[in-house]
C-alpha cells in the first residue's frame, strides 16, 4: 500500500489549511455561494437534500485498518454513526455540519486521507480492480500506475477547472472489473509478446445522460509516456470540451463530435510537444511506486487447505458463502473475500461505525491489515489464508457482512436516490430493498446465478443502471416517482448499454416486474445459462411481452 512521505503529507496538510480558511471566509460572507461551491466540491462537500454530504477519497479503493477506524470514529463524532460506500470506491458521510468539515479533514489527514477532487469539474479519484495485486487472472498489477496517476492528477494546476468531472479507471486483469469502457479515460495495462508493459487507452466512455462506450485511441503506450500522454488528452479536453452546456461538457461528447480518429490525431499532435518532457516517467520513479505494492509476507501453503476443504463439505452454508463471496487468489493457499454490504433491509453500501471497527479488526487478524472497496459497493479482505476462511466467515456473520450474494440478484448496486440526493427523480433504496425482500430465498437466488441489478435515482446514473443486466432508473412522471427498466447492459470487456423495454412502473409494481423478468429468464434458460446469455439469445421481446401483459398500451417517451 502507498505510504505518504513528508511531501505527500505536506500537500494534504496544506489543503486542510486552505479549506479551513475557505470555510471561514464563506461563513464570514467573504466568499459568495457561487464562489464557494466549486471550491467545496473539489473537497468533496456537496449540499444535499437533508444536509451537506462529504465524500472522502479512497484512492483505487485501498484502505489500511487504521484508516477504517478513523472513518468509524468520524461517523460517530460528526455523523449519525454510519457511512456509505459508493460505486466510485469512495466513502460518503451523509450528515456532517459544514462548520465541522475542516476538522474532519484535519482528522482524516492524520491517517493520510482527504476529500481532494472527489467531486467538482476536475480529475476525480482514479478507480481500479478491487482484486488488484491478488487476482488469479491478473496480467499486470494496476496499482503502481494508479498511484502515479493519483499524484499527477492531484492539484494539477492546468486541469483544476475542466469543463466537467473527469474519471480515470485502470485495469490490469484478463477480466475487466474496473469498468474501463465507461470512464472518461480507461486504461488496460497489458504485456506484449516480449513481456513488456504497455497501456491500451480508451477515451470517451461514460454513463449519465448520454451513455457511451469508450473508444480505443491508443492501442499501445509505453509506460514512461503515461503522464505526458494523459496531459495531452486533458489539454485537448480542457481547451475544446464544451463549456456552454453542462449536459454536453463531458469528454465523450467532444470525442464523438470530433470522431475518435480526429480526437486521437489531435492528441498525438499535442503529445508531440509534451513527449519526453520533464513529466516523462523515469525508471526510478516507476520502481519507487512499485515498491509500495509488493506482496505481503505470504506463507508457503498447499493450493488446497485440507481443513478448509473438509469444512466446505461439512457445512453447506459455509460452502455457499465460499462459492459466492470468495475469489481465487494468485498465491496458493490464499483467497480474497468479499464482505457483502447487501444484506436485505440495509441500504446497499451502508456500514455502521461499529461494523467498520469490526472490519478493521478482521483486516488486522486475517488480511495484513488491509481493506478494499469494490465498485459494487462491497468491502474486500484480499489476502486471507484458506485455513482461516471458516473463522472469518463466523465473524463476518456476526457483523452482518456474510450474506452469500455477491454477483447475485440481491447484490444490488444502488445510488442514494431520493432519500439523500437532491438531484433524484425517485427513491432507489426502498426499491432495492423491496427487490431484496422478494428474492430472499437463498436457494432460489443461487439457482438464478449471476445477475447484475443496478439502480439509479435519476439519469445521472450514479448506480450505473445502464450497465446492469437489469437496470432500474427513477423517472419523474407528473410529479410521481416511476421506474424505467433497461435490459441487456453489462460492464467489462464487452460492456454494453442496456435498452429501455417500455413505459415505466410505479414503485409498488417493481417487485412483481422483477419477478416477471426472472420468470421469463427461468422459462427460457438452458442448463446453467446466465441471465445475460439468455437475454442475448432470446432478445428483449419475451421480457416485454410478459412484463406488459394485460397492461393497456400506453405511449410514453423513453426518458433516456
Amino acid at each position: 500500500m502507498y505510504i505518504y512521505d513528508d511531501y505527500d503529507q505536506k500537500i494534504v496538510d496544506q489543503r486542510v489549511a486552505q479549506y479551513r480558511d475557505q470555510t471561514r471566509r464563506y461563513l464570514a460572507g467573504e466568499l459568495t455561494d457561487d464562489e464557494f461551491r466549486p471550491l467545496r466540491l473539489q473537497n468533496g462537500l456537496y449540499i444535499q437534500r437533508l444536509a451537506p454530504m462529504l465524500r472522502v477519497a479512497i484512492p483505487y479503493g485501498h484502505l489500511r485498518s487504521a484508516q477504517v477506524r478513523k472513518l468509524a470514529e468520524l461517523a460517530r463524532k460528526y455523523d449519525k454513526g454510519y457511512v456509505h460506500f459508493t460505486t466510485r470506491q469512495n466513502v460518503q458521510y451523509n450528515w456532517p455540519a459544514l462548520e465541522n468539515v475542516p476538522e474532519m479533514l484535519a482528522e482524516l489527514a492524520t491517517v493520510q486521507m482527504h476529500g481532494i477532487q472527489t467531486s467538482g469539474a476536475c480529475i476525480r479519484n482514479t478507480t481500479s480492480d478491487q482484486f488488484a495485486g491478488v487476482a488469479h487472472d491478473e496480467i499486470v498489477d494496476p496499482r503502481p500506475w494508479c498511484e502515479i496517476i493519483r499524484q499527477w492528477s492531484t492539484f494539477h494546476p492546468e486541469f483544476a477547472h475542466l469543463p466537467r468531472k473527469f474519471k480515470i479507471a485502470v485495469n490490469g486483469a484478463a477480466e475487466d472489473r474496473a469498468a474501463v469502457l465507461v470512464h472518461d479515460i480507461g486504461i488496460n495495462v497489458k504485456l506484449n509478446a516480449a513481456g513488456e508493459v504497455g497501456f491500451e487507452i480508451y477515451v470517451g466512455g461514460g454513463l449519465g445522460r448520454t451513455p457511451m462506450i469508450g473508444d480505443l485511441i491508443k492501442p499501445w503506450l509505453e509506460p514512461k509516456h503515461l503522464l505526458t500522454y494523459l496531459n495531452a488528452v486533458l489539454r485537448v479536453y480542457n481547451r475544446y470540451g464544451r463549456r456552454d452546456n453542462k449536459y454536453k461538457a463531458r469528454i465523450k461528447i467532444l470525442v464523438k463530435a470530433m470522431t475518435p480518429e480526429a480526437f486521437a490525431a489531435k492528441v498525438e499532435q499535442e503529445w508531440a510537444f509534451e513527449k519526453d518532457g520533464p513529466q516523462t516517467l523515469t525508471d526510478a520513479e516507476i520502481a519507487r511506486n512499485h515498491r509500495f505494492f509488493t506482496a505481503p509476507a505470504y506463507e508457503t501453503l498447499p493450493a488446497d487447505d485440507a481443513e478448509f476443504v473438509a469444512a466446505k463439505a461439512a457445512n453447506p452454508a459455509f460452502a455457499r458463502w465460499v462459492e459466492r463471496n470468495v475469489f481465487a487468489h494468485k498465491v496458493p493457499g490464499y483467497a480474497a473475500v468479499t464482505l457483502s454490504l447487501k444484506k436485505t433491509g440495509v441500504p446497499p453500501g451502508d456500514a455502521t461505525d461499529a461494523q467498520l471497527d469490526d472490519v478493521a479488526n478482521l483486516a488486522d487478524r486475517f488480511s495484513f491489515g488491509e481493506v478494499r472497496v469494490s465498485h459494487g459497493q462491497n468491502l474486500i479482505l484480499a489476502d486471507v489464508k484458506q485455513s482461516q476462511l471458516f473463522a472469518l466467515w463466523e465473524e463476518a456473520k456476526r457483523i452482518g457482512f456474510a450474506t452469500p450474494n455477491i454477483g447475485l440478484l440481491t447484490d444490488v448496486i444502488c445510488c442514494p436516490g431520493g432519500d439523500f440526493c437532491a438531484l433524484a427523480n425517485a427513491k432507489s433504496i426502498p426499491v432495492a430493498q423491496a427487490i431484496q425482500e422478494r428474492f430472499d430465498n437463498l436457494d432460489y437466488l443461487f439457482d438464478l446465478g449471476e445477475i447484475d441489478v443496478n439502480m439509479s435515482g435519476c439519469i445521472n446514473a450514479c448506480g450505473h443502471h445502464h450497465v446492469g443486466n437489469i437496470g432500474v432508473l427513477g423517472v419523474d412522471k407528473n410529479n410521481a416517482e416511476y421506474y424505467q427498466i433497461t435490459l441487456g447492459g453489462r460492464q467489462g470487456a464487452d460492456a454494453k448499454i442496456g435498452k429501455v423495454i417500455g413505459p415505466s412502473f410505479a414503485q409498488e409494481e417493481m417487485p412483481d416486474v422483477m419477478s416477471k423478468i426472472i420468470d421469463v429468464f427461468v422459462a427460457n434458460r438452458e442448463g446453467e445459462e446466465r441471465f445475460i446469455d439468455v437475454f442475448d439469445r432470446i432478445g428483449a421481446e419475451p421480457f416485454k411481452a410478459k412484463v406488459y401483459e394485460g397492461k393497456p398500451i400506453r405511449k410514453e417517451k423513453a426518458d433516456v
Partner: protein
Amino acid sequence: MSNQLIINRDIVDNRWTRVVPDAEGGVSVPSEGAILVPYQYWLGHRDELAGREVAICFAPDDEPESLPVDANTFAMIACDFPVFTDGRGFSIGRLLRVRYGFTGELRAVGDVFKDTLNYLARCGFTAFEVRADKDINEAIKGIDDFTEFYQSSVDVPNPLFLRRPVTA
C-alpha cells in the same frame, strides 16, 4: 475601481488601461497611454495600433497558436478569466510560457481572487489583477496556499519525482 494589482508578489499600481468591448462589441481605445486590448481586436487593428504601447488579452477561446508574431513582441500578455471555473486560460498560460517561450509579464484578469492564484502562478502567471471587490492583501497570500507540488509546472518544471530524494 482599485487600480492596483500583484506583479511578482508585489502590490503595485496598474499602468495599463484595459480596453473591453461594450455590449455591442464596440471597442473604444483611449488615445494615449499603455493599452491592453482584446487579442481579436489587435489582430484586426494592428496597423492602427503600431507604435503604441500595446498588450493583448486572450479570451478563453482564443488560440495562442494563431499568434502571427513572436509572443515576446509584447511586454505583457493577459488572459481573461470571465468566470474562475473556466480553466481554459490555464492552458493558454502554460502554452505561452512552455511552447512559445514568452518571458514577459503574464497577467490574469477577470474573476481572479485568492483561491485561484496558486494554480495561476503554477501555469506561468506572474501578475494578478485581483477582482476589485476582493481584498488584494488577503489574495496575495493565496499564491502560497501550496508550496509543494506533484506535477510539472511552469514555475517548477521538474515534477516531484525528479526532486524527491529517492530512498531505496
